[in-house]
């Protein structure tokens, strides 16, 4: 059995049809074509079964989510839950419900989930030249730009360090273009194990983390209204 109008719709169109996002022309074709109809049936079964089986598979339990809200979950798990909640509408709704329920208790402080805007592999592009002339020295092709909401973060190697040590130069720019809006805020370079290195963003939006061991780090920018996280910053 082959398609009655080969080339009219692609396999991707069929997937769009399964999820209810295909244009009318694709829907008309699927209804009249046994071959494409059979393909759609296969994808629809897989989609439905897997979604039923995997629904909320990565959500923390309602109780653990509540412990997170009460500040009883610490360390990496706290970050993992914050990152999950930032993406998961249903956990966000459950947290909102819990806050309302505990509402006659003193108002809880803003949780990590409210503040975290994780930047995971959100690399924009290598930056050959920065728009502002405040960056401290990475050469073309060595820098990477990341985006978190209305903030662009550009990272590159800092000045030459001691042997077997490296440094990281960063620039934080908001879309509003106000260079000192982040002045005095902390930038933290967090290793997989061991102690974080903390520095301060200057009035031009720059920061320098100097003299650290090569490795993979997490960069945290503690801005006034949010905590921006850049995972997997590889140095050296």
């Amino acid at each position: 059995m082959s398609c009655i109008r080969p080339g009219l719709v692609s396999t991707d169109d069929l997937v769009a049809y399964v999820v209810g996002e295909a244009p009318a022309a694709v829907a008309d074709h699927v209804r009249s074509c046994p071959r494409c109809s059979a393909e759609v049936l296969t994808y629809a079964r897989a989609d439905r079964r897997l979604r039923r089986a995997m629904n909320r598979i990565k959500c923390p339990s309602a109780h653990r989510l509540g412990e997170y809200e009460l500040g009883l979950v610490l360390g990496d798990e706290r970050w993992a839950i914050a990152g999950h909640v930032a993406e998961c509408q249903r956990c966000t709704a459950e947290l909102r419900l819990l806050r309302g329920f505990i509402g006659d208790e003193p108002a809880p402080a803003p949780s990590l989930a409210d503040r975290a805007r994780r930047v995971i592999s959100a690399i924009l592009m290598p930056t050959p030249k920065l728009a502002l002339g405040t960056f401290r020295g990475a050469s073309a092709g060595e820098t990477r730009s990341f985006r978190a909401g209305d903030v662009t973060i550009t990272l590159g190697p800092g000045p030459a360090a001691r042997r077997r040590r490296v440094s990281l130069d960063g620039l934080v720019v908001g879309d509003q273009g106000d260079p000192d809006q982040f002045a005095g805020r902390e930038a933290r370079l967090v290793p997989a194990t061991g102690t974080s290195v903390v520095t301060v963003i200057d009035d031009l939006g720059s920061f320098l983390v100097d003299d650290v061991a090569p490795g993979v780090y997490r960069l945290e920018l503690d801005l006034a209204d949010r905590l921006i996280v850049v995972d997997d910053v590889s140095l050296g």
Partner: protein
Amino acid sequence: MDVQGMALAGLADRCRQETQKYRRREAFREEFCYEIFRRAICDRDGDAWSALVETYAGLTRGWIIRHPARATVREDDDYLLNGLFERFLRAIGPERFVQFPTLANLLNYLKLCAHSVILDEVRRHEQTPVESVDRLLEELGEEPGAESRELANVEARDLWDKINQVLADEAERRVIYLRLALGLAPREVQRRDPTRFPTVGDVYRAYRNALDRLRRAPEIRRFVE
């Protein structure tokens, strides 16, 4: 006052009096109730536990009744109340008691148990939003919901691990996570991750590739066909 030296009956009396003040939002002393909690949890004192349950049965029943999701749960109040206290006792052992230095902390946690015992029931009965695909399958001649079955938690986690081993790259893992675990539509997936998926067509492609790969994997095929 040395509350640790007090007899349980006296403690329970004072605790009940102070709890009434707490509920009227008057100034209250917390050391009597806190000591009952301490004996019940740290000393595993069964009588202290009974006194605790008796003292807080009314308060906790009120929490259960007034919970915003209570109306969506079929189980009766006693069942939920038992679940609440069981959960509380199981969750706070002697080693965790230091995390709760005040009575307010303990009551907040008890209230969390009321919330989570109800939310567990809500989640258990929660339908995966697959109605549009159900309708489509019906249109194509398939019995609605004929093949679906629930997976035990361990089985589901095992399947999730296998799925992630089979997928080819981060784009496939990302779309599978956002679609299957979070239930997002492809347009929402694209909106969430425009760097990885510049167009919604890229999402369809990644999802189709992932489904094809899962259908070909012997250890996963039985779940999808």
